[in-house]
C-alpha cells in the first residue's frame, strides 16, 4: 500500500513533525513508567523502602499514554473495527467511510468538550500522595481527543477515498523480519 502524505509543503512538514512529536511523547511515557516501577521493585528488595509517589505517577503516565496514543493508533488503522459492510458494498464504501469519519469526529469533539469540563470541575481536588490538582491527570482526556481530531483531519482525504492509513515497518505485522 502506498503512503500518501497530505500534499502541500507546509502541511506535510507540519504533519511529519506532529507525528514524530506524538511518537516521541509515547516513547518517553512508556520508558518512564517501566523505569519508575522497576526502580521501586528494586528499592523494595534492596532497602525495604519504596517511593510512595511512584505508584501514583506511573498510573497517571499510563492514563496520559492511553489518550495521547489513541490518535496515533487511529492514524495507523490500529483500532479494531468491522469492515464487512465496506467490502460487501464497494460502491458505497467511500460514503460509508465518510459517515464513520463524521461520527468519530463528532464523538471526539464531544469527548474533548466534556473532558475539558470535567478537568475544570475537579481542578480543586488534589491527588492523594503528591497533592497536585487532579485536573493535571484529567487534562489527558481533552488533550488526547484534541490530538485525535488533529489526526482525523490530517488523514481525512486518503482514508475516505481509499481507506488508506499510514503504513510503516513499525506497526506492520508483515514487516516482522524473517
Amino acid at each position, binding site marked *: 500500500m502506498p503512503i500518501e502524505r497530505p500534499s502541500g509543503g507546509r502541511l506535510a512538514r507540519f504533519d511529519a513533525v506532529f507525528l514524530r512529536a506524538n*511518537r516521541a511523547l*509515547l*516513547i518517553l*511515557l*512508556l*520508558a518512564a*513508567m*517501566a523505569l519508575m*516501577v*522497576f526502580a521501586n*521493585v528494586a528499592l523494595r528488595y534492596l532497602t525495604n523502602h519504596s517511593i510512595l509517589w511512584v*505508584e501514583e505517577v*506511573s*498510573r497517571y503516565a*499510563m*492514563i496520559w*499514554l*492511553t*489518550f*495521547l*496514543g*489513541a490518535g*496515533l*493508533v*487511529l492514524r*495507523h488503522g*490500529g*483500532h*479494531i*473495527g*468491522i*469492515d*464487512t*459492510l*465496506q467490502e460487501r458494498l464497494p460502491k458505497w464504501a467511500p460514503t*460509508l*467511510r465518510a*459517515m*464513520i469519519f463524521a*461520527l*468519530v469526529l463528532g*464523538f471526539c469533539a*464531544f*469527548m474533548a468538550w*466534556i*473532558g475539558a*469540563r*470535567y478537568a475544570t*470541575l475537579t481542578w480543586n481536588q488534589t491527588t492523594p500522595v503528591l497533592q497536585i490538582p487532579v485536573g493535571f*491527570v*484529567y487534562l489527558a*482526556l481533552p488533550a488526547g481527543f484534541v490530538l485525535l481530531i488533529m489526526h482525523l483531519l490530517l488523514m481525512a482525504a486518503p482514508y475516505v477515498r481509499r481507506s488508506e492509513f499510514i503504513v510503516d515497518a*513499525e*506497526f506492520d*505485522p*508483515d514487516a*516482522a*523480519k*524473517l
Partner: protein
Amino acid sequence: MIAVLFISCMALLALGVPVAFSLGGATIAAIVYGHLPLIALPKYLFSGIDVFALMAVPFFILTAELMTGGSLSEVLLRFASQFVGRFRGGLGHTNILTITFFSGISGSALADAAGPGAIMIRMMKKDGYLAEYAAALTAAVSILGPIIPPSISMIIYAIAYPDINLGLLIAGIVPGIVIAIAMAAINHSISVRRNYRGLNERLSASDYLRNTWRALPALVLPVLILGGIASGAFTPTEASVVAVFYALFAGRVIYRTLTWPMLPSILARSALMTAAVLIIVAMSAAFAWVLTISRVPQELTAFIVDLKLSPIAFLLAVNLLLLAFGIFIEPLPGIVVLVPILAPIAHALGINDLQFGIVVIVNLTMGMITPPVGGLLFVTSVVAKVPLTRMVRELWPFMWAQIAVLIVLSFIPALSTWLPGVFGYL
C-alpha cells in the same frame, strides 16, 4: 435505555466504527436518552483505567516486543523443531509448539501471531503447505497467547471480578496444553490427507544440547514470572516489569541480537498497542456503568437464579451466549462488560471461580478467529497474502476442535483447578 445502549452499539459496529468509539458513542446515546449526568462519562472512563494492576498490560506487551526484537522466536523455533519437526506435518507441529512456548512469554494473541506466527507462516509456505492452511493454523494456535500465562485478558478479568484469586494466571496452563494437543491432532490428520511431510534433518546429541542451551534463557522467563507471583515474591505488576528488564537483559547481553537503536521502535510499537487496548478498556468501563445503574446485573441474576439451572447448564448457556458475542465483540470489552455480571452468578451457583474464568477467557479469545471481527485472521491473512474468505474454509476443523475443548473444560473443572490447587490457590 438498555435497548438504546445495545442497538446503537450494534449499529455503530456494523457501520464500521472502531470498537472503542462504538462503545463510547453508545454510552453517550444511552446517557442522553436516560437523562443521566453526562459528567459521569469521563469519570468512569478514568476509573476504568486508573488502576495500578493494569500496568501489567503495557509491561507484558513490552516484554513480548523486546523478546521478538531480540529474535527470540527463531531460538524457540529451533528448540521446538528438534522435538516435533521430524513427524508428519512437522513444520505445522513446530509452529504449534513454538507458539505454545512463546505464549508463556507473551500475554496477547496478536503478539503470538505477529511474532513467531509470521515467521512460521512464511516457512510453511516455502515448504509447500497451502498458504491459507498455514495462516489458519497460526491464527488458531495464537489464541494460546492470553490462555497460557502471562495474560492481558486475565489481568483485566481479575480487575473486572476482584474476588478471584491469582491462581487464575496458573489455571490457564493445563487448558492451554489441551488446546495445543487438539490443534496438533488436527494438523496431523490434515497432513496425512495432504501428504505434508516432516523435516528431513539429522540432529546429533550435541545439536539437541546446543538448541536447548540457546533456548534456556528464553524458557526461564515464564518460570520467573509465574514462580515470582506464585511464591508471593512479586505482585503481577511487579513480575511484569521485572520481565521487561529481564527481556532487555536477555536480548542485549545473552543473545546480543537486541541493539539500543531498536529500542525507540519497540517502545513506540508497545505504546501504540497499549493505547489501543486501554482505550477499549476505558470505554467498556463507561459502557458497563450504564448497565450497572440500569440494574441489569441484579435483574439478570434474579432471573437466572429463579430458573434453578444446574451449574453445567448455566456454563453451557454462558458458552453459547459468549460464542454469539465473540463473533462481534473483541475479548476485552466482552470481559469488562460481561464478567462483572456473569462471574458472581457462576459463583452463587457453586461453579469454581477459576474454572469459570478459564471458560470465559478461552471462549472469548476464540472470537478472535471468527470473522467479521477476528483480529487474528487479519494479521495472519496479511502475512500469508491470502484473502480472508479462502482462509476461513481452512479454519473450520480448528474451530470445531476448540469448541470441543471448550465443552471438555466446562464439564471437567479439574483441568482448570488442579494446577492452581497444587500451588496452594483455591
